[in-house]
């Protein structure tokens, strides 16, 4: 698509959303059998699969920390995830995203419970459509919970941007390409911001407004994340007492 004349027409964005609307979001928890935890997320045009393995032994050995678990995060775009084929493998951009996303999640994972171990998070972008790093963080957070890893809370993330001089929530591809600012933000439910990056320019006042919109967006996403995890076990959850753990006996 070539640069459209206007990105906002009559107060509506090109895909019909208002400035405060997010794209449709769908989380599905526990979709992979081999992984300890997983999540498939459709976030507008983004299709993201996150898998969590661990805690497990650290290889290579020198990476291990004697007092806590290490978190490793790999953000990877499939070669078919964008229009022009993406050359496979890590590049400058995905290494950076892996680092900031890891830092966005590390703060909530209770790493001190699992010394000398590693928690591996793999995020594959199957289809990219602006905001894939926030989609990755959202999916990874659900996958971590699904893996049974103790955390202080979930992490939710959303991008805010500026198009045609207006601050809007959750940019899509065209808005991202032709807009004038993009501000991905991740936060936990207590409102602590764990990721904040910015492309382009915003005035201080705009930044404040953008932040407020991101807080609202993250709250909505947090609800959806919770919902996805609760739905995984359906409505019929009423196990009776889990016994105080005790080994079985042989009956010989």
């Amino acid at each position, binding site marked *: 698509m070539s640069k459209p004349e206007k990105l906002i027409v009559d107060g509506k964005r090109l895909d019909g959303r208002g400035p405060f609307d997010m794209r449709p979001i769908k989380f599905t928890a526990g979709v992979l059998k081999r992984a*300890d935890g997983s999540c498939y997320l459709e976030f507008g045009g983004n299709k993201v699969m996150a898998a969590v393995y*661990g805690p497990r032994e650290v290889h290579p050995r020198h990476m291990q920390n004697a007092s806590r678990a290490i978190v490793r995060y790999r953000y990877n775009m499939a070669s078919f995830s964008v229009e022009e084929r993406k050359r496979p493998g890590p590049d400058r951009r995905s290494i950076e995203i892996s680092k900031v996303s890891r830092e966005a999640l590390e703060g909530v994972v209770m790493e001190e419970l699992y010394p000398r171990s590693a928690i591996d998070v793999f995020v594959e972008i199957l289809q990219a459509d602006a905001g894939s790093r926030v989609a990755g963080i959202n999916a990874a957070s659900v996958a971590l919970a*699904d893996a049974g890893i103790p*955390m202080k809370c979930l992490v939710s993330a959303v991008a805010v941007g500026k198009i045609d001089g207006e601050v809007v929530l959750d940019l899509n591809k065209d808005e991202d390409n032709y807009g004038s600012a993009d501000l991905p933000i991740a936060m936990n439910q207590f409102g602590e911001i764990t990721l904040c990056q910015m492309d382009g320019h915003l005035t201080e006042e705009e930044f404040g407004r953008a932040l407020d919109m991101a807080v609202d967006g993250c709250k909505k996403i947090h609800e959806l994340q919770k919902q996805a995890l609760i739905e995984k076990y359906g409505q*019929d959850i009423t*196990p009776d007492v889990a016994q105080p753990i*005790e080994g*079985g006996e042989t*009956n010989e």
Partner: protein
Amino acid sequence: MVEREVVVPGDLLGEDPKLASHGTYVQDGKVYSANYGLVDRRSNIKVIPLSGRYIPARGDLVIGKVNDVTRSNWIVDINSPYEGLLHVSEFPERVDQDNMSKYLHVGELIIAKVADVDPSMKVELTLREEHLRILRQGRVIDISHVKIPRVIGRNGSMISMLKKELDCSIFVGQNGRIWLRGDEKMVDLAIRTIFKIEREAHTSGLTDKIKEYLKNELETMRNQK
């Protein structure tokens, strides 16, 4: 039966920090869930996880597989991020240290007890106790360790039913490994049943459901003969 509520990390569970127990944490005097699981509010507040790897604790009975032999230790895989160490002195017999593999070689399975776990998660195992031994026959299966309490059942009701109905020897390790021995057909059925318990672990009235299932399966088996 009490309706159990599913919680996710960060859910507010209560206002009294004194009640905080497993799977929770306290922040600003309030109790939050630290895990994805089911809340149990009967005596204190705890969250029973729905998934997760086995983390060894002192006193656990586990089924391990010997991975390596050193001069003084057997290194045992216990289905956990941490490997178990079985020191020669914890072996029930006198051991000739030049020939450790004679007593226990790589690939052998043992029922062991976790003797100690230190803060850096060094796990020490022992075989010097009753019931603990080397497994030379039978079969071992892996299930998720969080489902183990359901396989055992309330006061062992599930496991004793399985043993009685199928006439098998079964040992359930805390680390999610289960050893079975008996008639091959019966062991097959026991394994199928255990996997069914694992799949349906979060549903209610499980023991009765499994009883019914076993009855039907045994009926079909008899008819086939």
